[in-house]
């Protein structure tokens, strides 16, 4: 082992110091398993899909698959997905922020704060099939809340057009993991609002509203935006909750892709790759913005 190490380093450029020269291959050996794993099981499969999106069945390069994404059914799927992710992200972010502010700054007992954070940790991971079951049991046609509203308050939400299997039903369900995720991520930023800033503002004669408008909102704004796009990506990639709630009938991108992988409903695997490529583009952009906003937000957290 040692011999081969020495012989392999013979060609290393001369500006590397003596010690480093002897150890260089060993350096790389330490992280090689990780990089091989990442390449084989994360990067290559994804790159393969992306490449497939730009090829036809014969293997020639083409833009046909990308263009085919604009056919009404798929375009509608993207549009509905974007709407659901957008609305659930905005609502989740606003409600999550309100709860984080209430718990951190609202003068509530301090045990409520730790209880809320613990619960948020659990609920943000409680997505998928079981979550869908819970909401069907609560707000389904025979759900407990549906029956209570009907029998006690005389409000039949299903005759008013609500359904847990609809757009708003899905959003109501997604909020169950979106709000806690927001609370988990935004609480450190709310913590970062220093008491001195409030006192300084009060000393200068600012009203409560001025303090919020000129201090709190500008400071929290980048964190808020960043987390909102993260919630967007979170909802956009979610399959299991939607699938368990509505079955394959709902026309959103992850479910279209799921059906495509399962049964090749589009009769063209390359179109499936294009569908996946579109998802990567959207979640990738969302995460890019998250990183940019987060970098801005960190200025205030030092």
């Amino acid at each position, binding site marked *: 082992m040692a011999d081969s190490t020495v012989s392999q380093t013979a060609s290393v450029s001369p500006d590397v110091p003596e010690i480093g020269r002897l*150890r260089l291959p060993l*350096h790389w050996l*330490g*992280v090689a*398993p*990780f990089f091989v794993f*990442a390449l084989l*099981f*994360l*990067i290559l*499969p*994804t790159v*393969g*899909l992306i490449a497939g999106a730009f090829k036809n069945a014969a293997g020639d390069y083409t833009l046909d698959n990308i263009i085919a994404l604009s056919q009404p059914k798929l375009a509608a799927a993207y549009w509905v997905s974007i709407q659901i992710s957008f609305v659930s992200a905005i609502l989740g972010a606003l409600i999550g922020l*309100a*709860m984080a*502010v*209430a*718990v951190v700054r*609202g*003068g*509530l007992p301090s045990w*409520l704060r730790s209880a*809320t954070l*613990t*619960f948020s*940790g*659990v609920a943000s*991971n*409680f997505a*998928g*099939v*079981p*979550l*869908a*079951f*819970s*909401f*069907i*049991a*609560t707000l389904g046609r025979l*759900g*407990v*809340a549906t029956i209570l509203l009907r029998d006690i308050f005389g409000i039949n939400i299903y005759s008013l057009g609500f359904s847990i299997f609809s757009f708003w039903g899905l959003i109501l369900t997604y909020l*169950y993991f979106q*709000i806690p995720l927001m609370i988990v991520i935004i609480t450190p930023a709310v913590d970062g609002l220093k008491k001195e800033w409030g006192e300084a503002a009060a000393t200068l004669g600012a009203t409560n509203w001025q303090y919020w408008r000129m201090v709190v909102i500008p400071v929290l704004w980048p964190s808020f935006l960043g987390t909102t796009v993260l919630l967007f*990506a979170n909802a956009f*990639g979610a*399959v*299991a909750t939607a*699938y*368990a709630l509505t079955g394959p009938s709902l026309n959103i991108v*992850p479910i279209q892709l799921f059906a495509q*992988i399962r049964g090749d409903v589009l009769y063209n695997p390359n179109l499936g*790759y294009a569908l*996946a490529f579109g998802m*990567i583009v959207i*979640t*990738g952009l969302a*995460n890019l913005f998250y990183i940019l906003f987060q970098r801005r937000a960190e200025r205030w957290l030092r």
Partner: protein
Amino acid sequence: MKQGSRFWAWLVFGVGTTYFILPLLATFEFSLRKRRGEYSFDAYRTVFGDPNFQATFTYSVIVAVFTILLGVLLVVPTAYWIRLRLPHLRPVVEFITLLPLVIPAIVIVFGYIRMFGSNSALPFLATARGADALLVIGYAVLALPYMYRAVDTGLRTIDVRTLTEAAQILGAGWTTIIARIILPNVLIAVLSGAFLSFAIVIGEFTMASLLNRPAFGPYLQNIGANSAYEPSALALISFAITWGCMSLIQILSRFAPRSANRPN
């Protein structure tokens, strides 16, 4: 002003809490309704007595254990080595570990199906064992962001360089250093990552379903499509498992060392 803001805080908190508690209570109530006219635990009895429940749950637990082992084997040496010798690679490795949050699970598994089919160079999907292995690998990828974050945080609290040098002076090899010096020192962080991985993996649906594995997630979905009260019981069981994992992480974090004697 102070009084007003406290009122709003309680109002927001109360409405939020209602939204979060109500589905749990409703699910519980619903799960007790299996026997007509009275509350009973029949739904739970049916679930626990179902051989498919036992089989799929056991399968998922085994997959989760292998996922955790693979994750630890992959992440601990890498994070250690990056800290010790290759700090300039840290941004690259961090970027890679965050990719599973960017690329949806359904896309990753689609890539697997395309790349590891029966006719490929690495035909994982040609055999059931191979597909099991691929599921473990896929879950390790999904858990990578959490595992890496946990282990890296753990490593930050110990003096990696001094420990390594001391071990080397005493004649330890790399395997000994990682297995008997580093791992025990970051064990609490590793366990946190492990429980989080477990919570993510145990009821996972998308990957297991698309790789056609007899896991707990697809079983849940199947039950949901075919029965009325059992899904509620299963939802609460799943919630309890997630809750248990998170509680264990919280308890463990109390034993974690706060900071290193010397930052490195």
